[in-house]
């Protein structure tokens, strides 16, 4: 048993965090919903992302990638959440892993790895999973993407960003089919499908963890400096009691993330998916609850567009619903554990 990040992973977390912070600093959330900046990174920023190897991280070497473990990818994604990065790195990672799992040709994946072909995953309209075909689907975290592939291999151009809760990631409808970009994909085996699903759920847990811990850290910082009644508000018990339970949620989510990230690469696919569902169910509830507490601890300023507080809550809600919220996974787990003959 070795539970926790090793020295290389800690160093990787630091370098990802530094780049994410730098990229995030350039993004302006605007003055209000009608003035929000697009979460599409500039050419220069995307080039830095590609150079850092983020789109290539999980792809295997024969596909032009770095062949990183799920734990390594989770380390990156936690930092994306921590800095509420408005650049479609998570969408790229998810779409790339789907294409790789479905046997997309190496030359296409090499372009994705290099950051030259910008793709987004297509989810069904309820955001519960990958869309089998483009009808009614949504391209997820799709700012700047030029193509999205449905599970049937059809390539689609993408429309404008839809109004969305999350201001750091764009959702777009697939449009016209792009025939010459469409791919021959194979039908996944059950194992491929489960492992892909476990991988994606785990990354969402990582994004939730980063988001909720950024929110809690900011709230604690605020509670130390804001004074009322002549004292820092963080000295009041009512404030401490809320913050303490939030730390319990954050640390438990971290334990769940570590276990599910490890499981994706180490356990049989069905067990890995089960672990990921447990982690996603826990993190979905905890992530939104913590971000709501953060609003409370900031008081009035937390309700303003100007503060980052709503950005975390928006991102947490999107992560929560994407690929199933806690209710969805609880229902699946109930069927697995509680049906006669289970």
């Amino acid at each position: 048993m070795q539970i926790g990040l090793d020295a290389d992973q800690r160093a990787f977390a630091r370098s990802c965090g530094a780049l994410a912070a730098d990229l995030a600093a350039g993004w302006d959330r605007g003055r209000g919903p009608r003035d929000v900046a697009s979460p599409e990174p500039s050419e220069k920023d995307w080039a830095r992302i590609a150079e850092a190897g983020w789109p290539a991280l999980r792809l295997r070497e024969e596909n032009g990638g770095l062949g990183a473990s799920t734990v390594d990818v989770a380390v990156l994604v936690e930092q994306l959440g921590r800095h509420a990065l408005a650049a479609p790195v998570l969408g790229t990672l998810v779409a790339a892993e789907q294409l790789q799992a479905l046997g997309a040709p190496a030359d296409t994946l090499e372009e994705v790895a290099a950051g030259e072909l910008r793709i987004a995953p297509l989810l069904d309209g309820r955001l519960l999973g990958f869309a089998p075909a483009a009808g009614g689907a949504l391209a997820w975290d799709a700012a700047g993407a030029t193509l999205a592939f449905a599970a049937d291999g059809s390539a689609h151009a993408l429309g404008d960003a839809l109004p969305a809760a999350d201001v750091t990631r764009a959702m777009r409808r697939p449009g016209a089919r792009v025939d010459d970009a469409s791919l021959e994909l194979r039908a996944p085996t059950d194992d491929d499908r489960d492992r892909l699903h476990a991988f994606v759920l785990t990354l969402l847990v990582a994004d939730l963890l980063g988001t909720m811990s950024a929110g809690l850290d900011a709230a604690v910082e605020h509670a130390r400096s804001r004074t009322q009644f002549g004292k820092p508000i963080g000295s009041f018990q009512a404030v401490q009691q809320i913050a303490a339970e939030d730390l319990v949620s954050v640390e438990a989510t971290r334990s769940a993330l570590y276990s599910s990230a490890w499981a994706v690469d180490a356990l049989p696919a069905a067990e890995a998916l089960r672990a990921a569902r447990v982690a996603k169910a826990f993190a979905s509830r905890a992530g939104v609850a913590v971000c709501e507490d953060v609003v409370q601890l900031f008081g009035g300023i937390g309700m303003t567009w100007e503060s980052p507080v709503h950005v975390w809550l928006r991102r947490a809600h999107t992560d929560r619903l994407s690929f199933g919220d806690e209710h969805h996974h609880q229902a699946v787990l109930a069927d697995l554990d509680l049906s006669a003959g289970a």
Partner: protein
Amino acid sequence: MDFSDSPDVAAFRAGLRSWLGEHLHSYAEGVGHDSAEAVAATHRWHRALAAAGYVAVSLDAAYGGRGLPDVYEAVVNEELAAAAAPPPPPIGHIAHAVADFADPDLKARVLPGLLGCTESWCQGFSEPGAGSDLAGLSTAATATDDGFVVNGQKIWTSGAMWADRCLLLCRTEPDQPRHRGLSMLVVDMTTPGITRREITLANGSREFAEVFFDDVRVPAENLVGERGQGWKIAQHMLTYERGPADMGWTGRLGNVLAAAQEGVRSGRLPADDVLRRRLAAVAVDAQVLSWHVARSLVDRDPADPGSSGSLDKLLTTRVEQELYAVVGDLAGAAQVVGDQRPFGEYLWSRAQSIYGGTQQIQRQIVAQRLLGLPRG
């Protein structure tokens, strides 16, 4: 990252599993606290588990432990739960206080009995006037030529009625600031001047008591650590008391959860969609708790266990209280009419947020020591 068993852990787990396969059936019957027979059965179970080498496995082998890393405590819990066995004895806290602070002579004298479960111990901390505000306790141990004379009263002392020894937190330095005036003594419960009066718990269980000390003489060699070190030892001990695996909680909860799931699967406990969903939700939380406990034990520094026990206890509290609430609701009307043991267990779950420091006190510790928020 690797949550899987190392070869050593796997071998240990397999050994425990086969021991349970062979011996559990001869001990599991009748274990509990609600009658003298149940208490006797509990002690028999604990002694058998200890004799087989599965109690306090993370403690020093010289005194009856096995000197294994802390994470083995989680393995013991997991396997007992998986076998639907009664939980291990809740002694990790007392064992650590003595093992980590007492001098070698005292350890050699008392630890084998504690870890071997041949002697029962109780923890004499709380007093009528000092619960959450533990440092305000007033039981006095006055120094004499050859030891101490104790006068005062303890309350809510679990297991005091049948305990052979008491780990007593008392005031030895009345002129020192309150946290610095405390010491920890090992008191033989047969010493003249000790009176125990049973207190029945709300669920009818007879496991705690108030204990009166009237001129009770305690020899100097029964002082744990040094005079004035009591608060530090108590803090150390409480960290372990709050550790879910050190006290056998994860094993116990796993057991209850598995029984509820089996009841629903078999149709014995009819469950509509809402109840199935709630049971699945608490199973999620219980699974996360056990991952968290493993991580926490791997991270824990035995020299300085820190305050993470408070965080872990808060997580345990969430899981335990919701679990028993769901189990109660699964029983439906049977929860309030008929055999009252299940309701008694539910009532017990409400104590998880009280003993070992209340939920409010744990949150205060987490907020101030782990998050660094200022004291009020």
